[in-house]
C-alpha cells in the first residue's frame, strides 16, 4: 500500500473521531462554567510542567530533593510576603511560593495515582461481576461491601501508625478504600449494557467473551465511570490534603499543599490583637487547593453534560 493510500485511509478513519471532538467542543463552548473548569485545569497543568522554571530547585537546604521546600534558618515564626519570598514563609522559614508551585505536581500525582488505581481495580471487578453474574457476582459484591464499610480516614491512620508517616501510606490507604464505588457503578452499567441486542448479536457472530467485553460492553458502559473519576480527582486531593493537615501525610517540609497548611496549624489564630496576622500561611495554599478541586468538579460536570445527551441523541 502506498504512503498516499495509507494517509487517505488514516484521514478517513479519523473523520468520525474529529466529528465527535467537534461536537464535544461546541457543546462545551455553550456553557461558560465548563470553559472555566477547563481553563483552570490547563492553568494547573502549565504550572506543573513549568515547575523547574517557575521555582528553580537547587537550594542547599533541599539536599537534592526538589520536593523539599527550601528554608533559611530555623526561625519558627512565619514571615509575611516579601521580595525574597513572594508568598511569605511558614514555620522554620519554609518558602510557601516554592511549596505551592511544586505542590501542584504532587497534587496531580496523588489525584491521578489514587483515582487510576481505584478506576482500574473497580473497572475490572465491576466487569467481571456484572458480566458473569451468579456466584462470582455475589462473592465479589459481598467483598466490595466489606471494603466499602471501611472508614478511609481511620484506615489511613492505622497505616500511618504501622508504617510511619509518609505520603505513600496515605496513597495506599486511599486507593485501597476508593475502588468499591467504581466497582458498583461499573457493575450496574455492565448489567444494563449486557441486555442490549448488540451484545447478543456479537455472540451470534461468534465473538469470544473477551472480545464481547472489550469491544462491545466496555465502550458503552465506561462513560459514567470516567465522569465519576474526573469528579473524584478533586475529591481525592482534598482528602489527601485533609490527612496531611491532620498530620498523617507527608512529613514537615514536603512540598504538599495540605502539608503547608499543617505547618501553619499553630499560627491560624494569629497574633494577639490581630487575628489574620499570618493569613498567608493558610489562605494561599488553601486557595490553590480550592481552585484545583473546583476545576476538576467543573470539568466533571461539563463532561457529564456533554456525554449524556450524546448518548441520548444516539
Amino acid at each position, binding site marked *: *500500500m502506498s504512503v498516499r493510500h495509507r494517509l487517505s485511509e488514516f484521514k*478517513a*478513519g479519523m*473523520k*468520525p473521531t474529529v466529528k465527535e471532538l467537534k461536537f464535544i467542543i461546541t457543546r462545551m463552548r455553550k456553557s461558560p462554567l465548563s470553559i472555566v473548569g477547563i481553563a483552570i485545569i490547563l492553568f494547573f497543568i502549565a504550572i506543573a510542567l513549568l515547575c523547574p522554571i517557575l521555582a528553580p530547585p537547587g537550594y542547599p537546604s533541599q539536599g537534592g530533593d526538589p520536593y523539599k521546600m527550601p528554608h533559611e534558618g530555623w526561625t519558627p515564626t512565619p514571615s509575611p510576603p516579601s521580595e525574597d519570598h513572594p508568598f511569605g514563609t511558614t514555620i522554620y522559614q519554609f518558602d510557601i511560593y516554592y511549596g505551592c508551585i511544586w505542590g501542584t505536581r504532587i497534587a496531580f500525582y496523588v489525584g491521578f495515582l489514587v483515582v487510576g488505581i481505584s478506576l482500574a481495580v473497580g473497572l475490572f471487578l465491576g466487569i467481571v461481576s456484572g458480566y458473569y453474574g451468579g456466584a462470582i457476582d455475589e462473592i465479589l459484591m459481598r467483598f466490595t461491601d466489606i471494603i466499602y464499610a471501611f472508614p478511609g480516614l481511620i484506615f489511613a491512620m492505622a497505616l500511618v501508625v504501622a508504617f510511619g508517616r509518609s505520603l505513600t501510606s496515605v496513597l495506599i490507604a486511599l486507593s485501597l478504600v476508593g475502588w468499591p464505588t467504581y466497582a458498583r457503578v461499573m457493575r450496574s452499567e455492565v448489567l444494563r449494557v449486557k441486555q*442490549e*441486542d*448488540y451484545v*447478543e*448479536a*456479537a*455472540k*451470534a*457472530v*461468534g*465473538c*469470544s467473551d473477551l*472480545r464481547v467485553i472489550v*469491544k*462491545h460492553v466496555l*465502550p*458503552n458502559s465506561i462513560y459514567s465511570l470516567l465522569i465519576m473519576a474526573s469528579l473524584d480527582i478533586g475529591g481525592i486531593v482534598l482528602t489527601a490534603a485533609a490527612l496531611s493537615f491532620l498530620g498523617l501525610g507527608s512529613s514537615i517540609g514536603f512540598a504538599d499543599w495540605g502539608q503547608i497548611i499543617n505547618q501553619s496549624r499553630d499560627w491560624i489564630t494569629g497574633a494577639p490583637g490581630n487575628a489574620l496576622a499570618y493569613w498567608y500561611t493558610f489562605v494561599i495554599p488553601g486557595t490553590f487547593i480550592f481552585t484545583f478541586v473546583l476545576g476538576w468538579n467543573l470539568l466533571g460536570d461539563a463532561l457529564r453534560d456533554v456525554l449524556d445527551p450524546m448518548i441520548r*441523541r*444516539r
Partner: protein
Amino acid sequence: METLIEVVGLKKYYPITGGVFKKKIADVKAVDGISLSILKRECFGLVGESGCGKTTFGKTVIRLLKPNVGNIFFDVPSDVREEIKRLENSNNSNSSRLKKLRKQYDLSTFKGRRLKKLRRRMQIVYQDPSTSLNPRMLVKDLVGEPLKVQGLAKGRELRERVVEMLEKLGLAENQLYRYPHEFSGGQRQRIAIARAIITQPTFVVLDEPTSSVDVSVRAELLKEFQRLQKEFDLTYLFVSHDLSVVECISDRVAVMYLGKIVEVARTTELFRNPLHPYTIALFSAIPVPDPTIRRKRVLLTGEVPSPVNPPKGCRFHPRCSMAMDVCRKEEPELVDVGSEGNEHLVACHLLKSRLL
C-alpha cells in the same frame, strides 16, 4: 426437496428464581415441545403473538440459546438421518453409534469451537437495528466483525469483502466510516443484513425484520430479502406477528401459540383455509386496507395465559368457543389433515374427530 433443519421435541425453559438463595421456583416454558422441519431454500414463516415463544424458538434453533430438551439436526444427509431414526426406534437407543452420530449432527450437543464454526452457517437479523448495532462501532467494523472473528479474512481482503457486501445492499463505500445513528431505519437494517450474510451462511433467522421500519421501506426490504435469497442460496426462518407480510414472502407458515405449534401448511393453503380456531381468530383480526370489506371478527375472550403455568390439555381451550371435554384433559397432537401432496398439519381435537 431436501430438509435443511429438523427440530425434534425442542424445549426451552427460562428458570424463575426466588428466595434468598435464588432457588428455582418455576419455569417460563417459552418453547414447550416443538417438532418441525425446514426445507432447503424455502422461506418458512413463523407467526404468533407476542409472548408465544417464536423469537425464543428462532434463537434456540441457531444455538444462540441452549435448549433444555430436544434435537436440532442441521444439514444432515438423508441416509444418515434414516440411520439415526432407525437406531432411535430400535431397542438399543443408547448405542455408541447413535451417540456418535448425535454428537456429529445434533446441534444441541455442540459447544466450544464447533459452536463457533457453526456461527458461520447460521445467522440472525434482529428486529430493531437501532439496538442491534453497537452505537459506538463504525459500519466497517460492524460488517467486518464476523469475518474477523471467524478468521475468514483480514486486512485488505476484509475491507474489500465489506465494501462488496455493502454495495450489494445498496450502500456506498464512503459510508464505511460512519456510525449507525447517522443512517435511516431502512439503511440500518440493511447494515444488519450485510453483517448477517457476509460469512455466506446457509440459514438465516429473520426476527421481525420489518416491524420497526416504515411501510414504504418495508416493501423495499422484502424485495431485498427475496433477491438475496436467490443470489446467496439462503434458507429463511421468517418470524413475525405481521400476517400480511408473512403471507407475501413465505412458502410455508407455522402458527405458534404459547410455546407450541398449532398449525402448519403451505402459505396459500393456510390463508385460504385456516383450520385451527386460534388461526381463524388471528386471521380475522387483521385489519384489511379496504374499507368496503367489513370482516366478521372472531373476537377472542380474555388474555393470553402466562407461559409459566399453561392451561392443562389443549392450551387454547380457555379462550376457544368450540372447546370440548377432551380439550380440557388431553393435549392434541399435530395431525396431517390435508390432501395428498398438500400437507396441512393441525393440533386440534375437533379436527381429529372430524377426520376419523
